[in-house]
C-alpha cells in the first residue's frame, strides 16, 4: 500500500505540470456513469483518485449505473437531455451517437486525430469524420488459453503454430468417445465469441465485413466462405465444443476443457480461484498467419456527451483515463492497457513480471484489429451469429452467409 501511495504522490506531482490552467478557481463536478465489473471498478476507483489528486479543480461523481444490456438507459437519457458528462460506450453505439451529433468531438479539447499513444486498432474505434468522439478505456485481445496439465497428459509441448496443428492437437487433447466426452479438446464459448472468431478468420483470409463505402456487407464473398469452411472443419471434431455457454473459462481452469478461445478475463478468474490449474496463453493460429499476423480485439470507449455543461473538464478526465499512468491500474487488475505506454508504467511492470501470460496478451494488441465501425454494426453482428451457428450445425457456409448477408443488406438499405 505504501508503495502505491508513494507512486500516487509521484504521479500527482508530475502530472500537475500537464494540467491546462483553468480560468476560474471553482471546482467543477463531472458526472460519470459506469456499470463495470468488480475488476474494472477497482481499477477505475484508483484512476479517479489519481485524477482528482492531479486535477484539484475537478471532482468526479461516480454513479453506478445498470445500462441495461442494450444501453436503454443511455439512449433514453440522451434523448431526454439528461445524459451524464461521461460514460462508457461500446459496440456500434459510438458511431451511431456520433452521427446524431450527441458526442463531443475531443479534437476541440486537445486530442489529435493523427497522433496518439493508443494502439491503432483501438483508436480507430473512436474516429469518425475526422473527429475523435471518445477515447478507448478497454482493449481486450482474444487468444488461446491452454490448460498445462491437459497438454502434458497428451504429450504436447508446444502451442499450435498453424491451423492444421490446432486441429491435430484438438484431436489429441480430446479424451472420451462422441456423446460421452471426458475432456474436450477445444471450447469456443457463447454467441459473441463465435462471431468474433469468424471475423478474425475473415480478416485473416483477406476479407472484410463491409464494402468500401459501408453500404453493403460482403462477408459472404470468397474470404468469408473460406472462413466458414474452417469453422465447419472445427465443428466436425467431436471434442470441439463450439457453442458452449457460460462455464468455459472455469472448465479450462479445471481441466474439463483443454484449450479455449477467450480473452484476458481468464487471468482475473484464475487469480480468484485457489484451485485453478496452471494455464498458458498463445496466439490463435490463423490460416494465412505468415502473411498477415493479426488478432481480434474488442474495444470499449469513454465518451463525453455534447449536452454536457462541463465538456472541457470531462474531456480532461477521459484523456486521463486513456493515458498510460491511469491504464497501469488496469494492468494491476489483470487487464491489458489500451496503449503500449503501460510497458513503462511501474505498476504494470510489476504485474507483467508476476503474470507473463498477461504480458503476452498485452503484446498481442499491437497486431489486433477490432470489429468494423459502422452505425449498423449491432444488426450486422446479430446476423453473423446465426450464420456461424448454421455453419456449425452443418449448413453449407455459402448458403448460410448469403442468407445472413441478404438479411443485413435489407437493413442497410433502410438506412
Amino acid at each position, binding site marked *: 500500500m505504501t508503495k502505491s501511495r508513494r507512486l500516487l504522490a509521484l504521479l500527482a506531482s508530475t502530472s500537475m505540470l500537464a494540467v491546462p490552467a483553468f480560468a476560474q478557481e471553482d471546482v467543477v463536478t463531472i458526472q460519470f456513469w459506469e456499470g463495470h465489473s468488480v475488476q474494472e471498478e477497482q481499477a477505475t476507483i484508483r484512476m479517479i483518485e489519481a485524477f482528482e489528486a492531479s486535477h484539484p479543480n475537478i471532482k468526479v461523481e461516480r454513479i453506478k449505473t445498470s445500462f*441495461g*444490456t*442494450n*444501453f*436503454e438507459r443511455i*439512449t*433514453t437519457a*440522451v*434523448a431526454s437531455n439528461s445524459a451524464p458528462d461521461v460514460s462508457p460506450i461500446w459496440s456500434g453505439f459510438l458511431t*451511431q*451517437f456520433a452521427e*446524431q*451529433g*450527441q458526442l463531443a468531438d475531443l479534437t476541440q479539447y486537445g486530442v489529435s486525430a493523427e497522433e496518439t499513444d493508443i494502439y491503432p486498432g483501438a483508436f480507430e474505434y473512436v474516429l469518425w469524420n475526422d473527429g475523435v468522439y471518445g477515447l478507448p478505456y478497454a482493449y481486450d485481445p482474444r487468444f488461446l488459453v491452454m490448460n498445462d496439465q491437459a497438454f502434458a497428459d497428451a504429450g504436447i509441448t508446444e502451442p499450435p503454430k498453424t491451423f492444421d496443428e490446432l486441429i491435430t492437437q484438438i484431436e489429441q487433447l480430446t479424451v472420451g468417445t*462422441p*456423446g*460421452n*466426452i471426458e475432456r*474436450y479438446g477445444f*471450447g469456443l464459448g457463447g*454467441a459473441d465469441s463465435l462471431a468474433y472468431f469468424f471475423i478474425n478468420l475473415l480478416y485473416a483470409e483477406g476479407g472484410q465485413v463491409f464494402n468500401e463505402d459501408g453500404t453493403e456487407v460482403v462477408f459472404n464473398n470468397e474470404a468469408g466462405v473460406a472462413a466458414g469452411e474452417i469453422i465447419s472443419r472445427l465443428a466436425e471434431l467431436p471434442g470441439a*465444443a463450439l*457453442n*458452449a*455457454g*457460460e*462455464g*468455459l473459462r472455469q*472448465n479450462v481452469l479445471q481441466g*474439463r*476443457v483443454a484449450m479455449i478461445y477467450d480473452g484476458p478475463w481468464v487471468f482475473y478468474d484464475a487469480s480468484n480461484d485457489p484451485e485453478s490449474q496452471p494455464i498458458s496463453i498463445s496466439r490463435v493460429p490463423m490460416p494465412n498467419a505468415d502473411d498477415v499476423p493479426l488478432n481480434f480485439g474488442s474495444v470499449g470507449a469513454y465518451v463525453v456527451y455534447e449536452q454536457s455543461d462541463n465538456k472541457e473538464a470531462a474531456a480532461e478526465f477521459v484523456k486521463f483515463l486513456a493515458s498510460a499512468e491511469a491504464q497501469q491500474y488496469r494492468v494491476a487488475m489483470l487487464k491489458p492497457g489500451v496503449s503500449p505506454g503501460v510497458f513503462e508504467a511501474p505498476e504494470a511492470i510489476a504485474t507483467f513480471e508476476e503474470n507473463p501470460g498477461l504480458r503476452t496478451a498485452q503484446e498481442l494488441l499491437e497486431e489486433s484489429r477490432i470489429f468494423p465501425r459502422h452505425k*449498423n454494426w*449491432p*444488426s450486422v453482428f*446479430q446476423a453473423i*451469429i*446465426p*450464420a456461424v*451457428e*448454421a455453419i*456449425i*450445425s452443418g*449448413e453449407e457456409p455459402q448458403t448460410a452467409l448469403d442468407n445472413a448477408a441478404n*438479411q443485413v443488406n*435489407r*437493413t442497410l438499405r*433502410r*438506412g
Partner: protein
Amino acid sequence: MTIKQQQLLLGLFFLGIPLLWLLVWVIAPIFVVLYLSFTSFNILSPPEWVGFWNYEDLWHDNLYWRAFGNTLYFTAFAMPLGISLSMLLALLVNTRLPGAWLFRTIYYLPVVSPLIATALVWVLFYEVSSGLFNYLLNSVGLSAQPWLNSTTTAMPAIIIMSVWKSLGFNMVIILAALQAIPKELNEAASLDGAGRVRQFFAITLPLLRPAMTYVLITTLIGSFQVFSQVYVMTEGGPNNSTVTLVHLIYRTAFQNLDFGYASAMAMVLFIILVIASFINLRLVSRGNLYE
C-alpha cells in the same frame, strides 16, 4: 337519490377515473407507437414521416416471419401444456387437508423467483460440456444432448423452463375460482351418484368459465409476448431458432435503434393479438360475455 341516479354517479366516477388514467398513460402512448410506426425514428433525433415504408419492409422481412413462426410454436405448446397442468395442480391443492398450504406455496415459488436467476439455473442444467442433464445422461450410459445449442431442441428446452416457471400463476387463479364454488353443489351431485370426473365436467368447469376466460386470454397474450427467458437463455439462437416477436422488437428498438420499424412490428403483433383474443373470447364464452 334514486337508484338510477346513484348508479349514474357511481358509474361515471368509478369508471371515469380509471378510464381517464388509462387514456393518458396507456391508450395515448399506443397511438404514439402507431404514429411512430409510420416514421423513421432512432430515439436520438426527431422522427421523420415515411408512410407505409416500415410495413412494406416488414412484409418482406424473413426474420420477422421466422420470429412469428417461432412464437406460434412456443404458444402452441406452452399454452395448452401450461393451462392443463395448472388446472390439475389447482384441483390437487384445492383441499382442506392439513399441509395443503405448504404445497400451494411450493408450486407458486417458481413464479416469484427472479427470472434471470432461475433462467441461469436452467442454463446450467442444459449446459453441453458441464451441465447436470448431460452428466446424468452420460452416467446412465446415454449420449449427451445439445439442448440449447441445437435448432431442434432449443425451443422445447425453453418451453419446459417456461411452463415450470409459470405453472403456479394460473394455479392460484383457478384455485381462487374453485374456492368460490359452493361445496354443496358437488356434494349434492355426488348424492345423485355422479362420479368425480362427471362432477368436474358437469359442475366445476362451467362455473370456472369466467376464470378460465381470463386464464386463456392472458396466457395467449403472455405466450405471444414471450421474451425474457429467450433473451436470457439463448438470445434467439442458435440460428434464429428461438427468436420471438417481442425479442425481435426489443432488439430492433434498442440494439439497432430502429424504433419506427420496431413500432410497426409491434402494431402487427397488436392486431394479431386483438383478433386472436376476440376469437378466443367468442369461443370460450360462446358469444355471451357475461355468463
